[in-house]
């Protein structure tokens, strides 16, 4: 029924170009048969009269201008969806790679999704307890939030992500309506295995859907991987009313793939060679997190990215930070001090926490305690740099107390075990414990009555 084209004009990188093509839509999904046996897939990325440019997901190695048969399918890239996807492993375009059967379903969905109408959104307010003190108290994760982990090579981002997935207590979620969607873009095999194994050990594997595009897989597929993963997440959350935790890693590899494609297409580059539309493109991924007014389910998105050279002003973390609702930043320095999780709390932030913590959500003292801990720890930084110059001994008494506070804050409050699951009350109590190192007159961000109630005198 569809016309077949047997001759290509040009092949360049992952792109093939054809002329004489009629009746083709922008973004249409394309089936390419190589040497009459191997099937690859592609997408129309430019139409100019009867000249069409197609991007091939699996790469163009082995394709000549004459050994292919190109069919235009008449629809965009869609993936079949049903509850059977739970527990399965797919590649970046939604084909099973775990040896199992294809998913068969009438429910097909375009992986690009559609933007959520802001009037249909429900503002996220429900606290998710991760059992990690630094996050729960200071960078509180909220159901339906998009909160990335800004990491660097060799730091413990994978461990933290796994710990969050294993310990997350989401309000309204139980064993039946909880799911994890995992998308891997350009990660190493052992990283992917680590996730798989950890999910297996904690017994959640039945609730996990994995979309894997590993470091040696084609880059075009890498660009569709987070979209495929989020399409599955939208289906689970908004059609099956599940609470979905989505972990996608590594956004840096994704953005690099995008840059590679952009350069092949000869586009005008902007900062560091990344395309000018990197912001819009990233947002079409991140903004798919959230909740809807008339649906039960939720998508909480935890993207992981490795900051090149630990530079938070690099375009990838920078643009991400402008779209996501905060960020969890990991610190090389804490990592070297053997603090796990090495979370640098000062540059970290959760934009949604102000509406999801406090009296009706966590505990009455949460907001003020958080502010005080931030203010005090930020003061510790100044004293540290002073101590490096004049020596600790010459510091004033109060400054010494601050140093002591800083030490305990890192060792007692931030640091915890990889399997240590602290309740929010334990976390806040530890917060007060370390804060009580400081004299009460230093607590200028906490109202009297709360100090009265929680401050531990005589420490």
């Amino acid at each position, binding site marked *: 029924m569809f016309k077949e084209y047997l001759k290509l004009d040009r092949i360049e990188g992952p792109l093939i170009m054809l002329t004489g093509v009629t009746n083709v839509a922008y*973004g249409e999904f394309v089936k390419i048969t190589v040497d009459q046996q191997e099937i690859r897939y592609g997408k129309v990325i430019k139409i100019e009269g009867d000249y069409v440019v197609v991007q091939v997901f699996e790469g163009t190695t082995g394709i000549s201008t004459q050994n292919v048969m190109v069919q235009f399918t008449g629809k965009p890239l869609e993936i079949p969806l049903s509850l059977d996807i739970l527990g399965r492993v797919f590649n970046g375009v939604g084909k099973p790679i775990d040896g199992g059967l294809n998913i068969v379903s009438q429910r097909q969905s375009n992986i690009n999704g559609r933007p*959520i109408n802001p009037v249909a959104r429900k503002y996220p307010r429900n606290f998710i307890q991760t059992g990690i003190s630094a996050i729960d108290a200071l960078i509180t994760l909220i159901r339906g939030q998009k909160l990335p982990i800004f990491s660097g090579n060799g730091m413990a981002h994978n461990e933290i992500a796994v710990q969050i997935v294993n310990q997350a207590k989401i309000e309204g979620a139980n064993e039946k309506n909880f799911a994890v969607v995992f998308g891997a873009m350009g990660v190493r095999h052992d990283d992917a295995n680590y996730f798989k194994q950890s999910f297996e050990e904690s017994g959640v594997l039945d609730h996990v859907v994995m979309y894997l595009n590993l470091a040696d897989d084609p880059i075009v597929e890498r660009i569709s991987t987070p979209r495929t993963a989020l399409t599955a997440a939208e289906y689970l959350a908004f059609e099956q009313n599940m609470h979905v935790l989505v972990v996608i890693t590594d956004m840096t590899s994704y953005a690099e793939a995008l840059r590679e494609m952009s350069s092949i297409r000869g586009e005008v*580059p902007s900062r560091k060679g990344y395309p000018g539309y990197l912001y819009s493109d990233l*947002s079409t991924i991140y903004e798919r997190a959230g909740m809807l007014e008339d649906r039960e389910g939720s998508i909480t998105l935890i993207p992981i990215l490795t900051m090149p050279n630990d530079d938070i002003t690099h375009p990838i973390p920078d643009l991400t930070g402008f779209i996501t609702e905060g960020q969890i930043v990991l610190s090389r320095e804490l990592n070297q001090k053997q603090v796990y999780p090495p979370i640098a709390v000062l540059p970290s932030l959760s934009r949604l926490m102000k509406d999801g913590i406090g009296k009706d959500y966590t505990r009455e003292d949460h907001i003020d305690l958080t502010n005080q801990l931030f203010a005090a720890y930020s003061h510790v930084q*100044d004293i540290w740099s002073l101590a490096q110059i004049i020596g600790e001994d010459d510091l004033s008494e109060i400054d010494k107390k601050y140093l002591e506070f800083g030490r305990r804050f890192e060792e007692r409050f931030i640091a915890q075990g990889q399997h240590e699951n602290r309740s929010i009350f334990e976390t806040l109590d530890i917060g007060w414990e370390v804060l009580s190192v400081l004299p009460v007159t230093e607590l200028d961000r906490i109202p009297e009555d709360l100090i009265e109630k929680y401050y531990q005198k005589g420490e």
Partner: protein
Amino acid sequence: MSEAKVELVNGPVVKGSNMGAFKLNEMVTVGDKMLIGEVVIIEKDMATIQVYEETEGLYANEQIFSTGAPLSISLGPGMLGNMFDGIQRPLKKIESISPNFIPDGIGLLSIDTEKLWNVTITVKVGDMLKGGMVYGQIQETPSILHKLLVPPNISGEVISIEPNGEYTINDTIVTLQLSNDNQYNLTLVQKWPVRKGRPILERIPIYKPLITGQRVIDTFFPVAKGGTVALPGGFGTGKTVTQHQLAKWSDADIIVYIGCGERGNEMTNVLEEFPSLIDPRTNRPLMERTILIANTSNMPVAAREASIYTGITMAEYFRDMGYDVAIMADSTSRWAEALREISGRLEEMPAEEGYPAYLPSRLAQFYERAGCVKTLNNEEASVTIIGAVSPPGGDFSEPVTENTKRFVSAFLALDKKLAYARHYPAINYLTSYSSYVTMLSDWYRENVAEDMLYIRGKMVKLLQSEEKLTEIVKLIGEDVLPNDQQLILETARTIKKGFLQQNALHKEDTYVSLQKQYKMLKVLDTFYESALSCVKMGIPLITIRQQPIYQAIIKMKYEVPNSRLELLDDMIEQIKKEYKELRDLYQH
């Protein structure tokens, strides 16, 4: 003539053939889905169209239709309290057509055409009307009277009027006889091309402040009604919270809030929060004076470029009724990036960092639409523009920040370091500036206090000295400094904690009247002067700090309600008294 057809599709850029008769900037619909676009280049019979919607699924050879007019929006009742996309399509209406997700090809929608409005006609047969004059009015919300204005380019004699009563926006209520024998029907709505500023009688000098209730702004870096303000800051520095605070508490009559390329949840937050917030001046929900425009970051990029113009056109329309309008654009960087993205697709020659060479002129055109004016109806009114800027990496030397700086008079720089220390609003008190201080000095003198700006100047100097002293302290520690310098550090800290830091979530502190700001300043000044006289006598700073009144100063922002300012007067007396006693004690 043959039909116009799609020839090329490349993201939001579409080229069509047989389009020689189309006009530049004309609005067109593309293809069977009726995607909305605008003609941006014409070359022989080919034209390039910027499409405001997702072009996925568009075929070559689909037809392109003309609408005969440039990109325009409908101005009339029904905008207040609603949220629109970048080309004025109401998002609630879209939600009712297609739940939850925004579909492509919704076609042209605008303000509600079915709703009945209770119209009072204010002219009679025989009246001569000119552009900008009022012919009717509608109480659109309890706080806003919507005046119906003759379109700027129309004038004539009233030959018939309908009785007062209920009408939809497209009903004719007044008919004019124009000078050229034609008749013109005035309805409740008029169209206006967004890229063209609405005419005014004349500009008048700026002289009154936009009172925001935010201490660091009103006292340190005031914003004028009719002024232009840039609010730059890296991510996490609190741009959006500050913009929200301004949208909530500024004493403008109308607020137009443009969420340009920002987060969906932020717009949802405004939608949930504003209806429950009460305007302190009118005692009505803030939503009744607010118009929201949302092009979230994942919505089509071309409409993001248009959203800024849609917003400013709405603002000008309400200005023409004689209102003070404030427009918040969050963020203009996303708008500039949209320009860049489209420019790249149009294969234009890039200038700095890939931005098109016309970036500065576009920015200038936008900011110049602000101003304090006499309207065509000879009323005083204003449009104030407050544009957030999101510089990559928080680096203010990038093109958008740099160029914006040239066209704005107040620059409120948000600072990462302050934000990390949770000093909010994180407006840097040293690098920010407002050139409105001089323009507004008469106003402050007459309406607040004679010495308000004098004390302000003193505080600014103290903060500057503190900055220099901090450099020294970093090297040798604070204890080594002489007492008077330590006092400067101490006072600066008090200014920061007790005055500059303001808690948007605290019910007394979220909005502070100018009177209270002045009295708080006065308290700080009294403290500094009294303490200085103690220091001069050799009284150690630690003793000064131990006075009971000292803690009270830091907490005055929370403890003294807006309604009980006399407590601050008491405090001033108390400071004088305690430190006098201290001095007396030392003399003996």
